[in-house]
């Protein structure tokens, strides 16, 4: 769209995106030992896609991440989080009692928090993408009402 002629922006963002994604994964999976966790990782991971959407257009972003997929991920994250709780119920503990998830409470706590944080990461990632697309789609629809993809998208999100 608008950024077609901005060579520098396109090249630099393409170079940056893999590192942003990698950093997000680090924050996600190292969150139980260092600073970080699911929420931050989800935001960082989504920011790579937001950058992609800003430079290459919302339509391209939506081909990579269609709205059915983001909604599925939104739901999957919550289900994963609550599912860990239900798993611990089934294994004889209280809701979200990670101790019972493995034979040894220390490992149980470890698995529990990693899974729960992954659930948070998924939902936050999909949430940020959804919010961005809703707003960006609205702007595109205001500027150029004939673009059907964006206009239709805002109606759904």
């Amino acid at each position, binding site marked *: 769209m608008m950024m077609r002629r901005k060579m520098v922006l396109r090249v630099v963002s393409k170079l940056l995106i893999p590192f942003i994604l990698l950093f997000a994964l680090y924050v996600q999976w190292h969150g139980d030992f260092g600073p970080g966790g699911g929420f931050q990782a989800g935001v960082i991971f989504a920011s790579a896609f937001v950058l992609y959407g800003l430079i290459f257009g919302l339509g391209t972003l939506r081909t990579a991440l269609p709205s059915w997929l983001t909604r599925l991920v939104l*739901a*999957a994250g*919550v*289900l994963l989080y609550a599912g860990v709780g*239900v798993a611990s119920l089934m294994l004889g503990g*209280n*809701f*979200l009692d990670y101790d019972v998830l493995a034979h040894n409470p220390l490992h149980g706590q470890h698995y529990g928090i990693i899974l729960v944080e992954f659930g948070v990461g998924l939902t936050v990632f999909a949430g940020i993408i959804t919010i961005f697309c809703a707003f960006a789609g609205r702007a595109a629809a205001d500027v150029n009402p004939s673009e059907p993809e964006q206009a239709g998208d805002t*109606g759904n999100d």
Partner: protein
Amino acid sequence: MTFLAEHIAVLVVIVPLMAAPLCVVMRCGVASWGWATLVAVGNFFLSIVLIQHVMTNGTIVYDLGGWEGPWGIVYRVDEVGALVVLIISAIAAIVLPYAKESIEREIPKERHYLAYCMMLLCIAGLIGMAVTGDAFNLFVFLEVSSLATYVLIALGSDRRALTAALRYLILGTLGATFYVIGLGMLYMMTGSLNMTDLASLLPAVQNTGTVHVALAFIVVGFGLKLALFPLHVWLPNAYTFAPSAVTAFLAATATKVAVYALIRLIFTVFGDVDPLESYGVRPAVMVLAIAGMFAGSLIAIYQSNVKRLLAYSSVAQVGYMILGISIGNAPAMAGGIIHMFNHALMKGSLFMALGCVFYVIGSVKLEDMAGLGKRMPLTAAAIVGGGFSLIGVPLTVGFISKFYLVQGALTEGMWPVALLIMLSSLLAVIYVWRVVEVMYFRSPAIGCEERSEAPMSLLVPTYVLLGAAFWFGIDATFTGDIAMSAAQTLLGGSK
């Protein structure tokens, strides 16, 4: 069965909470409706198990994640909490079967599954507020239910639903923020967020300015959420422009749960401080409650949109609940609690009947309802039945609530208050009569005299709820016993 008994306090929250994202996965309106209805009915049975368990074995304490209070998050369910859970899940189990036809008429098809997802989230949030024993967790569930509510209101077919939702969003967020500010101050003074722990730590610091300000923030915050006069301005538009099924559900549950949260904070968290007495705020709360009773009813008399008329009547009815709290003896308190239950029944059935009207004639304006007694006899009869309850005619639930309230007021020797309760009922007679007069004594407009009743899937749930409103008005032993024992528990402080 032991599994159920052991985890019942958390199951009533996580069942609807986990069912909600599954609606999004289904992406199909009819399937998510079936699923949501199944879950709501299942949850209703769980809440019956919960209340039986609480009535026989006493208060349930459940440590989330195995972390004991006051360090971990604790769910604590006593009689009041269990009764509120029962109200929410019962109303949900009746409104969801009703919702299908009504939502199909009022919401675009591609958003149906999102509406059911939001309904389930709202149920989960409201039930969470009722079972939690952690003051910060209360805020989290308040936000879960409120955010779902904003979305549900914005789904209304009228474009004004968007501004109504935005106004509620702003005021509701303000209310929730005030609550967190107050809670932050309590945390600063005590270092705890657990309700029972707070209750034991607060008396030591009760005469500090911080705690006074904290209580003020908390009361104003929840005053906004429960639409205490004069903080009710969001309510009429939100109820008027939301889809009918949503209005029925919210009017029957949302404000009641906020009242419950306020009761919980004043009588459990501040239980040993007795803020109504020791801070001398009882007259202020009482004046606001009575002002709400009269202002709500007076404004209701002049409304031309029946949905809005009932919304203002809700402001008045919230006044009765707060009045029960502010009088502060056991019968009045029981009156306030029982009115939460009774008002859910009558307002729920009235808004559902209005949903039937909207389904058939596409409007709930007073002038369009002329001759409704001939055109839709069953629906019109349901509106009259619900109206009787609002007035407080004997043999209806409204009478039971007012009986307890008047008894409480007279025990304290506050006969002017008792008189004011009677007087405000007369105002209810006026606004209910206006609707009855238009429905039965005016002939329908030319061209729409033919008889056309709403489908059975709308009428049956309406009549089930209305039937309950009469049933518990004739035999109030069940609700009366629970409310009385709940009131005594609450007035006994945190012990």
